[in-house]
C-alpha cells in the first residue's frame, strides 16, 4: 500500500535565515552573453505587495537537459555561511525572496526545449505552495490547455518584453488579473 502524503503547511514569516541565499536569483553564470532577466511584483487580493513571498524557479538547461546540477546553495565549510554559486555551473534552480515592495529579480539563461520557466510560490498566509509558469514566447503558445484558456487568463502566464533580454512577470495571488496556477496530479 502506498503511504499517504505529508500535508503542506505555510512557509511562515521567518524562513529568511534558512532558505534564501544572496545569489539565489543568479542562475545564469556570471557574464554569460545569453543571460536574460525576469522580474516582477507579487501582489495579494487587495493589490498590496507581498513582501514575504519566496519564489523558486526550475528549468531545463539551454541544451534541453533536465538533470540540473548541484551548487545552487553552496556553503562555506570554514564559516558555515553561504559560499555562493561557482560562477560556471548552470544548476537550473533559482530561489529569491520578494523585497519590501514585493519585487523580485531573476537572472537566468533561456530554457531549452520548453518555452517557460516553472515557478513555485511560497508565502506567509499561503498554506500550500502554488505552481505557475512564466512563458517567454512573446504570446505564441502551442500547448492545448494553454490555448484553451480565456485570453485574459492566459495573459497572466505570458511574460512581457521590457527591452533587450528583460521580461516582466507579475504574480497576483487573488482577484483582478489573478495568476493562473497549475495542478500536476
Amino acid at each position, binding site marked *: 500500500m502506498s503511504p499517504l*502524503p505529508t*500535508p503542506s503547511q*505555510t*512557509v511562515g514569516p521567518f524562513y529568511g535565515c534558512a532558505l534564501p541565499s544572496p545569489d539565489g536569483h543568479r542562475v545564469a553564470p556570471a557574464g554569460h552573453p545569453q543571460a536574460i532577466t525576469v522580474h516582477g511584483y507579487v501582489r495579494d487580493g487587495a493589490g498590496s505587495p507581498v513582501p514575504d513571498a519566496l519564489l523558486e524557479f526550475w528549468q531545463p538547461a539551454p541544451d534541453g537537459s533536465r538533470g540540473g546540477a548541484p551548487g545552487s546553495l553552496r556553503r*562555506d565549510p570554514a564559516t558555515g555561511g553561504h559560499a555562493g554559486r561557482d560562477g560556471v555551473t548552470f544548476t537550473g534552480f533559482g530561489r529569491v525572496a520578494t523585497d519590501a515592495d514585493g519585487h523580485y529579480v531573476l537572472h537566468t539563461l533561456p530554457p531549452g526545449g520548453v518555452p*517557460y520557466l516553472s515557478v513555485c510560490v511560497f508565502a506567509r498566509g499561503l*498554506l500550500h505552495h502554488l505552481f505557475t509558469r512564466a512563458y517567454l514566447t512573446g504570446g505564441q503558445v502551442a500547448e492545448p*490547455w494553454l490555448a484553451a484558456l480565456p485570453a485574459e487568463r492566459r495573459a497572466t502566464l505570458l511574460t512581457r518584453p521590457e527591452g533587450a533580454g528583460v521580461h516582466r512577470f507579475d504574480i497576483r495571488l487573488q482577484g483582478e488579473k489573478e495568476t493562473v496556477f497549475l495542478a500536476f496530479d
Partner: protein
Amino acid sequence: MPSNLPTQQGISCEIDQQAKAYAASGAVRHHPPRDYPPYRSSLLRHPRQPLVPVRDPEAAELSGPVFGATDVTESDADLTRGQAGEPLGERITVTGRVLDRAGRPVAGQLVEIWQANACGRYAHRRDRHPAPLDPHFTGTGRCLTDRQGRYCFTTVKPGAYPWHNHTGAWRPSHIHFSLFGTAFTQRLVTQMYFPGDPLLPYDPILQSVTDATARSRLVAAYDHDLSTAGDALGYRWDIVLDGPAATRTEGSRP
C-alpha cells in the same frame, strides 16, 4: 489591551465549523485548503480561480533541482554546534525517512529546517516576541538524505510563541521543514509538531489540515530507543512527498 482581533473562542468555533464542513463533504483531502479563514493571513493570499490541470508527460516540472555535497556542510545537521557555546534548551534528535508517494526513498536530496529557540524566539529581525535571543543558536540546518532517504538533525526543542492571528494566539512548538523530491511537482514545505502538545487543537495553521489522520502525520513520535543516554531525546518523523515524478529514466532524457 483594546483590540479588533478575534478571540481564541471565536477562532476555535471557526475551526470547529471548518472541521464539520469537511466531515460532511465526504471527501478526503490530505493538504490544507488555501482558503482557510481561521488563519486570517490566508484571506487575501489564496487564488479564487480553480487550479488549471497540466497533464503533460513532457512537463519540465516532472524533473527537478538536485543538490550535492557542495550545498551542505557536515555540521549543518547539528544545530547545537558551530557557535561559541552550547544553546539553551532540551537537546533533541529528529530523524526519519523521506519517501515519494509510491513509498520509494528519496535519496541524496536536500532537507532544510528552521525553528525558534528554546524560548520561542527566531533569530530573525522581524520577530518581535520579547523572549530572549540565544547567542548560541541560529535555528537553521540542512542535510542530504542518505540512500535510504534518511535524514537526521540534532537541535533543541523549540519553544511555543505568541502571534497576532487572534488574541491569545500561540503557535505550538514546531520545526519548519523544506523538502525536494526527484521532481519539482513533489516540492514540499511543511511543519513538524511535537506529540502531546496542549496547544495543537488551538492552532489554526495545524488545524487547517481538516482531515484528522492527515493532521496526525504532522506530529512526530517520541521514540525512546532513539534517545541517547545523557545527550538528547529522540523523535521520529517520516515524510511522504506528494505529486508525480517522471517515469522516464535519466538515459532517455534529451
